[in-house]
C-alpha cells in the first residue's frame, strides 16, 4: 500500500508539484532565516563572551554583587592559585585572568601639559604569553589600524577613535588616572603601540587594551585579577555544559567556605546582563518564525489540498466502492502528506543550505545599519550553520503539509459515501 501511494505521489504531478513547491519554499525560507538569526545572535553572543562575559566567569562573591562597576577593591587576590585550581577542576576549559577597569586617560602636549582627557574602558589580558589565545579572542592583530602589537611592558593599544580625537600617534605616551586596589590614587604612564578598530559598535569608543602585568602595576593589584573567564572548546555557546560546570563548582566552594564573601563564585554567560535574554530571544524568534511558516503554509496547502481533493473525488469514490473505508482513505492522505512534506522539506533544506553556506562564507556588511548601537555586535553578519540548520526546515515543511491535508481531508468525512460515489457519474 505504501509503495502504491508513493507511486501515486511521484506520478501524479498535479497532486505533488504545487505542494512540493510550497513546502520547499517555506522550508528554504525557514532554514535561511533561522541561520541568519542564529548567525547574528551567535556572533553577538560570541563577541560579548570574548570581550566581557566569557562563557564561564569566576569572581569573588563581593565583586560579583557589583560587577558592572569593576570594584577592583574586591578582586581575586591569589589569582594564580585559583587559576591552577580551575585548570585542575575543568582542564577542557580555557581559563584566563582579566582585569577590567574604568580610568581617565590624560594625553599631554609637547610641554607635558594636559592636551585632553577622556574616560576609558580597559581590558587587561594575557598579551605577552605565547600560548595565550587572548589576542586572537580580541582579534587584535586584524583590528590594528596604525602601529603594532605591544611587545614590552608599558605598551598598550587604544581605540582608533580615541587616538583621532586627541591626535595621538603610535609611540606617544599618556597617563592613566584611576584608583588602586586599596582605595589610593593611581597614575601610570603608558605608551601607545597601536590603535584599534574592532568593527563592533560599543567597543570602538574608548577602549584600552593592555597586558595584565601593566594593569597589576598600575592599580596596585600584584598577584590579583578582577575576574577569571572560562571558554569552552565549542564553536557555539553550550549552555547546558556551562550550567553543569557552574553548578558543580559552586557546590564544592560552598561546601568549603560558604560564609566568606571573598570566596570565588562561578556564573555563566547566561547569568550576565542581557545575555540570557539574547539566548532566549533567539529561541523565541525561531519558534515564532516556525509557527508563522507553519500557519501560512498550512493555509496554502489546505486550499491546495481542497482543490486536489475535488479533483480526486472520483478516485476516492472508486476506492470506497472497492471496499476501502473512509478512515483508511483519510490515513492514506496523511501518509501522502508525510511523503510530499518530506520530499519538499529535503528540496527546501538543500536549497536553503546552499544559500546559508554562501552567506556563511561571504557575510553581509551591516555596519550602516548599526552605527548608533551601543551593543557589542559584529558589523559583518554571517549565517550560522548548526546541527539545527539541517532539520529546522522539516518542522514547518512536514507539519504544514500534514495539517493542510488533514483539514482538506475532513471534506471526505463529511460527505456521504453515496454522494462521493455518485460523483463518479458524469
Amino acid at each position, binding site marked *: *500500500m505504501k509503495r*502504491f501511494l508513493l*507511486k*501515486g505521489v511521484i*506520478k*501524479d504531478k498535479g*497532486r505533488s508539484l504545487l505542494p512540493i513547491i510550497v513546502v520547499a519554499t517555506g522550508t528554504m525560507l525557514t532554514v535561511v532565516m533561522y541561520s541568519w538569526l542564529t548567525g547574528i545572535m551567535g556572533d553577538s553572543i560570541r563577541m560579548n563572551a570574548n570581550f566581557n562575559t566569557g562563557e564561564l566567569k569566576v569572581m569573588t562573591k563581593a565583586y560579583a554583587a557589583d560587577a558592572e562597576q569593576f570594584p577592583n577593591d574586591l578582586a581575586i587576590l591569589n589569582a594564580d592559585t585559583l587559576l591552577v585550581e580551575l585548570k585542575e577542576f575543568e582542564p577542557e576549559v580555557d581559563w584566563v585572568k582579566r582585569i577590567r577597569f574604568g580610568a581617565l586617560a590624560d594625553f599631554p602636549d609637547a610641554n607635558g601639559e594636559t592636551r585632553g582627557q577622556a574616560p576609558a574602558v580597559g581590558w587587561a589580558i594575557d598579551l605577552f604569553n605565547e600560548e595565550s589565545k587572548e589576542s586572537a579572542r580580541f582579534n587584535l592583530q586584524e583590528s590594528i589600524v596604525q602601529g603594532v602589537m605591544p611587545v614590552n611592558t608599558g605598551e598598550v593599544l587604544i581605540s582608533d577613535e580615541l587616538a583621532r580625537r586627541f591626535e595621538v600617534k603610535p609611540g606617544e605616551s599618556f597617563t592613566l588616572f584611576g584608583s588602586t586596589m586599596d582605595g589610593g590614587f593611581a597614575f601610570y604612564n603608558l605608551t601607545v603601540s597601536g590603535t584599534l578598530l574592532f568593527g563592533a559598535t560599543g567597543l570602538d569608543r574608548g577602549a584600552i587594551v593592555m597586558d595584565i602585568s601593566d594593569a597589576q602595576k598600575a592599580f596596585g593589584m600584584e598577584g590579583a585579577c578582577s575576574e577569571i573567564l572560562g571558554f569552552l572548546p565549542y564553536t557555539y555557546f553550550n549552555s547546558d555544559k556551562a550550567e553543569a560546570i557552574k553548578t558543580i563548582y559552586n557546590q564544592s566552594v560552598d561546601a568549603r567556605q560558604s560564609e566568606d564573601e571573598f570566596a570565588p563564585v562561578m556564573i555563566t554567560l547566561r547569568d550576565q546582563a542581557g545575555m540570557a535574554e539574547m539566548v532566549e530571544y533567539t529561541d523565541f524568534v525561531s519558534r515564532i518564525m516556525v509557527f508563522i511558516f507553519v500557519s501560512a503554509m498550512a493555509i496554502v496547502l489546505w486550499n491546495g489540498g481542497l482543490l486536489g481533493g475535488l479533483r480526486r473525488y*472520483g*478516485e476516492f*469514490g*472508486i*476506492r*470506497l*466502492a*472497492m*471496499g*476501502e*473505508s*473512509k*478512515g*483508511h482513505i483519510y490515513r492514506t492522505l496523511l501518509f501522502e502528506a508525510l511523503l510530499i512534506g518530506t520530499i519538499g522539506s529535503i528540496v527546501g533544506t538543500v536549497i536553503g543550505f546552499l544559500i546559508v553556506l554562501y552567506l556563511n562564507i561571504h557575510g553581509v556588511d551591516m555596519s550602516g545599519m548599526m552605527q548608533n548601537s551601543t551593543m557589542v555586535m559584529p558589523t559583518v553578519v554571517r549565517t550560522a550553520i548548526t546541527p539545527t540548520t539541517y532539520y529546522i526546515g522539516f518542522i514547518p515543511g512536514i507539519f504544514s503539509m500534514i495539517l493542510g491535508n488533514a483539514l482538506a481531508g475532513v471534506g471526505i468525512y463529511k460527505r*456521504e*459515501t*453515496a454522494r462521493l*460515489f*455518485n460523483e*463518479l*457519474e*458524469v
Partner: protein
Amino acid sequence: MDNPIIVTLEKVTKRFPAGKTEFTALNKIELTFRKGEFSGLVGPSGSGKTTLLNIIGSLDCPSEGVATVLGKNISSLSHKESAELRNYGIGFIFQTYNLLPVYSVYDNVEFALLLQKISAPKRRKAVMDALEWVGLADRAKSRPSTLSGGECQRVAIARAMVKRPALVLADEPSANLDSQNSHMIVQTMKRLNRELNTTFIFSTHDEKVMQYLDRIIYLKDGMVERDERKSED
C-alpha cells in the same frame, strides 16, 4: 434453481429530499437474487436502477425496508463493516470505467488486493490471472490513457473480478462502448459467470446487453414492473 439466495430485498424504499418534500426513487422493492445469476435491471433513465445497485452494493442504505446482501443487513452495518463487505464480497463495474489514471493497468487491478493484505506473490498471480481472463495480460504495464474504451472496461472487469467476489454489480457497463465492444465485454462477463459462478447484476437499457441476461427486471418509477426469466432452452 436451488442455488442459495445471496441478495434479499424486502419492501426496500429509498427517498431523497427534494426541496421541502421528498422524492421516492425506490418504492417497496421486493426481489431476491441467487448465487450464479446473470440478471439485469432495465428501465428508462431515472427509474431507480443506480439507486438500487448502490443499496445492494452497501454504498447507500434504504430509507425503509430491509436489504440483506451476502448475509448482512445493509442498514445495520457500520461504515467499516460495509467497506469490509464491499472489499471481500462485491465487485463494481461502471459506465465510465473509473480507472485510476496515474497507475498502470497492473496497479489498477492490484489495488483491490492491496486492501486485503494478500502476500505479494499471491497478488501477482491473481492479477495476471484476472488480466488473462479479459485478454489484456500483455498490457499490464500500460497506462489507462493509452487504452481504448473497450480495453479500459475490460481492465475494470479484471479489477472487479480479481478478488473473486460473490457478487458483481455493473451499472450500464456498455453505455460508452460501440456495438462490437459491448458484445465483447458482456460475453467476457458471461464466461466468468459460468466459470467462477459469480453472480452478476447489471443495470442497462442496452438491447445488446439484454440478450445475454438470464433474467430481466423491469423498473419503472422506482417500482418493479416485471420480473422475467429466460426459459432454459
